[in-house]
């Protein structure tokens, strides 16, 4: 497969930039004032090159990228500067010219293909509509989708996330544009799918000589894909540099902090990042050997109607221990978390807590048990009632579980809990919308702590957060489990995050445990090809990252399951065990990945 970081361009490269953004300022009007979104942003992109716009939420990176297509959000306007694409000043074009520019010169691949494709139109027609002379089936073939003719007749909802994103890319390259704008093209995709989509984008860029502008908050993706990087913060360019230079020697303190905040696959604990971007990794504290078991799962099966989502999963979580459930979407990890929280009922096996049976839904668990197993949701924005103050949100479980006898006591306890999650207790009177994403997630944790739980289920709690905020929330979670001796079930698809926080790891694939063991052992010597594939697909914020223990995604061999009912595991000692498998030589990786996406789509 083509390497997506091309060699340095020839020095005598005479190609003029196809994209030139000069001193661009954008503002939107709110409450009678102009609020700047971007301030004097400048960059250029040459054909065949990829520029990444990097920044956290609110940095204005998507706004700037959209101006390449002459698109501004409702209420926004250009307050200065210019955007030139293929020789035309985008904001000086007439509506008709702008349409032609969008149709033929610049194309966008939007963040979430699931929302960006029209649900009522067949895929083939949506691609054909984008113009160009290339037949739809050829385009679908070009984005490596199997059986293009049949696929063209499907509707978007009949495809998996990875397939939808490939369709969005096919649509974008249909008219053979000169510039491709990719707005967080892989956010929300699994690592394996993400890797293959990025490789596809890189290959197409080289094949068609496209200039690409990649918007991303994920520094791993950027290191893997971009030639140059422009770092944005609050609408201003902080630093602009070739990718290698930027990752090797970031000059601005903000860039240094940003880079240092990204969890690495070889961190042996959580990193604390200093003002100037220095990293200090705090080693994990060992879980005492005699720590009592808080949750025991034995042969748990969970069904959705007639489909089995989880096939006979067993694990223990001890007090003071973080157990990570790892896997792609559809692996059953969130289903397990929700079942433990009492939102679903298992169809078989046992799920127990010293205080009672967890195989029952939350409403029929005794109140004492209910308060001891608590869930923190992935998305704090939607799990808090927007019309109630966050203090209210925390007081409610306090009263419900009877941990606070009076109104005044509940209010006091709520303030203490807000302090416990390292927030200012004065925030109790705010509404969720008045807090930042990280603050809301902390409130979500405080609410879960209100019942004085001994088991905390964290379902992808940092997925929606910026990388620097993620580091803080992870550290908070780590502190809390030490202070409160919590048994923590940590659900995540991000292996680097898991490496930093988890004591033990369970790898799930299609509802089956393929590998489990102490974090160090599993990361040092992943035994199952699927675990290796996951690790190989994880992208590190380093353009020269060497293949890890698992190897590159291409080097992962084909395999088939070889477990029999009486002989399931290969034991590597110290609780590290791997489900039995056999190498399968005739299945090359490419097809394996395509089939994996296929099955996900059908699920």
């Amino acid at each position, binding site marked *: 497969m083509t390497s997506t970081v091309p060699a340095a361009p020839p020095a005598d490269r005479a190609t003029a930039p196809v994209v030139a953004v000069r001193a661009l300022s954008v503002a939107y009007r709110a409450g009678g004032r102009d609020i700047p979104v971007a301030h004097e942003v400048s960059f250029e992109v040459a054909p065949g090159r990829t520029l990444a716009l990097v920044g956290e939420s609110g940095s204005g990176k998507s706004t700037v990228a959209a101006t390449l297509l002459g698109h501004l959000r409702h209420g926004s306007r250009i307050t200065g500067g210019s955007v030139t694409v293929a020789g035309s000043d985008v904001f000086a074009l007439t509506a008709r010219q702008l349409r032609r520019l969008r149709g033929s010169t610049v194309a966008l691949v939007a963040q979430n293909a699931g929302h960006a494709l029209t649900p009522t139109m067949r895929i083939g027609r949506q691609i054909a509509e984008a*113009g160009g002379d290339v037949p739809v089936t050829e385009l679908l073939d070009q984005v490596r989708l199997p059986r293009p003719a049949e696929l063209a007749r499907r509707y978007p909802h009949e495809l998996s996330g990875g397939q939808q994103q490939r369709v969005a890319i096919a649509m974008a390259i249909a008219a053979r544009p000169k510039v491709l704008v990719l707005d967080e093209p892989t956010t929300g995709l699994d690592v394996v799918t993400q890797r293959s989509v990025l490789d596809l984008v890189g290959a197409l860029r080289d094949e068609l000589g496209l200039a690409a502008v990649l918007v991303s908050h994920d520094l791993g993706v950027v290191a893997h894909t971009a030639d140059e990087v422009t770092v944005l913060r609050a609408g201003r360019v902080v630093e602009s540099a070739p990718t290698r230079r930027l990752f090797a020697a970031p000059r601005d303190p903000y860039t240094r902090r940003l880079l240092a905040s990204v969890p690495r696959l070889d961190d042996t604990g959580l990193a604390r990042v200093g003002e100037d971007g220095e990293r200090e990794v705090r080693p994990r504290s060992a879980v005492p050997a005699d720590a009592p078991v808080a949750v025991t799962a034995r042969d748990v099966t969970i069904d959705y109607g007639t489909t089995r989502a989880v096939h006979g999963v067993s694990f223990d979580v001890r007090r003071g221990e973080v157990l990570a459930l790892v896997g792609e979407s559809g692996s059953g990890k969130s289903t397990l978390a929700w079942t433990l929280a009492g939102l679903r009922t298992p169809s078989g096996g046992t799920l127990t807590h010293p205080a009672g049976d967890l195989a029952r839904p939350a409403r029929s668990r005794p109140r004492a048990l209910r308060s001891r197993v608590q869930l923190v949701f992935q998305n704090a924005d939607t799990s808090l009632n927007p019309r109630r103050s966050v203090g209210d949100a925390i007081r409610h479980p306090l009263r419900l579980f009877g941990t606070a006898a009076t109104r005044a006591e509940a209010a006091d306890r709520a303030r203490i809990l807000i302090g416990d999650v390292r927030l200012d207790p004065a925030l109790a009177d705010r509404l969720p919308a008045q807090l930042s994403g990280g603050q809301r997630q902390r409130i979500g944790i405080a609410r879960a702590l209100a019942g004085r739980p001994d088991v905390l289920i964290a379902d992808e709690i940092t997925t929606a957060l910026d990388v620097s905020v993620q580091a803080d929330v992870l550290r908070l979670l780590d502190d809390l489990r030490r202070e409160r001796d919590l048994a923590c079930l940590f659900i995540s698809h991000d292996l680097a995050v898991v490496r930093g926080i988890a004591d033990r790891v369970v790898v799930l694939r299609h509802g089956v445990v393929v590998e489990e063991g102490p974090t160090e052992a599993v990361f040092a010597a992943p035994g199952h090809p699927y675990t290796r594939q996951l690790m190989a697909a994880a992208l590190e914020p380093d353009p020269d990252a060497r293949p890890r223990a698992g190897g590159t995604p291409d080097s992962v061999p084909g395999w088939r399951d070889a477990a029999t009912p009486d002989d399931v595991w290969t034991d590597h000692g110290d609780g590290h065990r791997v489900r039995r498998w056999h190498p399968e030589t005739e299945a090359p990786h490419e097809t394996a990945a395509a089939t994996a996406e296929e099955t996900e789509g059908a699920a």
Partner: protein
Amino acid sequence: MLAFLARRVSAAVGTLFLSSVLVFLAVQALPGDVAGQILGKDATPDAVAALRGRLGLDRPAWERYADWMGGALHGDFGTSLVSQRPVGGEVAAHLANSALIAGVTVLFAVTGSIVLGVIAGLYRDRWPDHLISTVSLVGMSVPEFVVATVLVLCFSIALPWFPAVVLYGPDASVGQLLPAVWLPALALAVVMAAYIVRMARTSVIDVMAGEYVTTARLKGLSSWRVVTRHALPSALLPTLHVIALNVAWLVGGVAVVENVFNYPGIGKLMLSSVQNRDLPVIQAVALVSAVVYTVCNLAADLGAMALNPKLRTRGRTR
């Protein structure tokens, strides 16, 4: 898809069965003597007994229900106590007349209000939106008999273009009724348009703010294509059920408007049969209304299926 269809149709049949039971219970099995109710308090006991015999009131309720339903399924709703003619024919004639008004109203009001709602949504917060929203709100808040009366004042008295009232009975031909249809249809349209306009406006605004509409725009498509191909199919989905309820309301008897114009429709029949305590007619009219509502909702479900591929492709093997 077939399973979905089968489920919807069987749900509709179940709904109809339940409503037939309710109609029957409400009219026949309520406490008090039906024959006495019909004849009034001055009736002689002999007359009451005779009527009870004729109505079969001495038999158990379920037996009478089975008889009634068995007849109804064959189009026989019994005999009117007032006109002594078969109820079925009488109801059918009135229903056809109401359907004429409903057809005209639906043709103009539904298409018109969808178009207006879409325009209002596309020009959100600009003058076309303000104009359409205000006018349709006024139409919604004024009672229909006021609208009807004002229309009569304007278009049959001040400007004698349309007849003020219908002088024909239920058996009038379409040609005789047609001139009289327009004013009632207009009155009904004014009243019902507001709901559809507002619904269409809201969902058009929702859909137009969606990511796939932005994507379609950024593909360089014309606004017309973006609206008709990408936005409208999804935007019309929630509107469909509002339309269905409105259509059912139209056919199922718009008593007030029909009375203002003396139009021989099903609403007028309902009103006169209640005044005359003509039980078989009341029962038949109520049952027909239930059928109309159910059929309209079923039609909306099928329409939703046509617009929403998620419903259509459910269960397709992948």
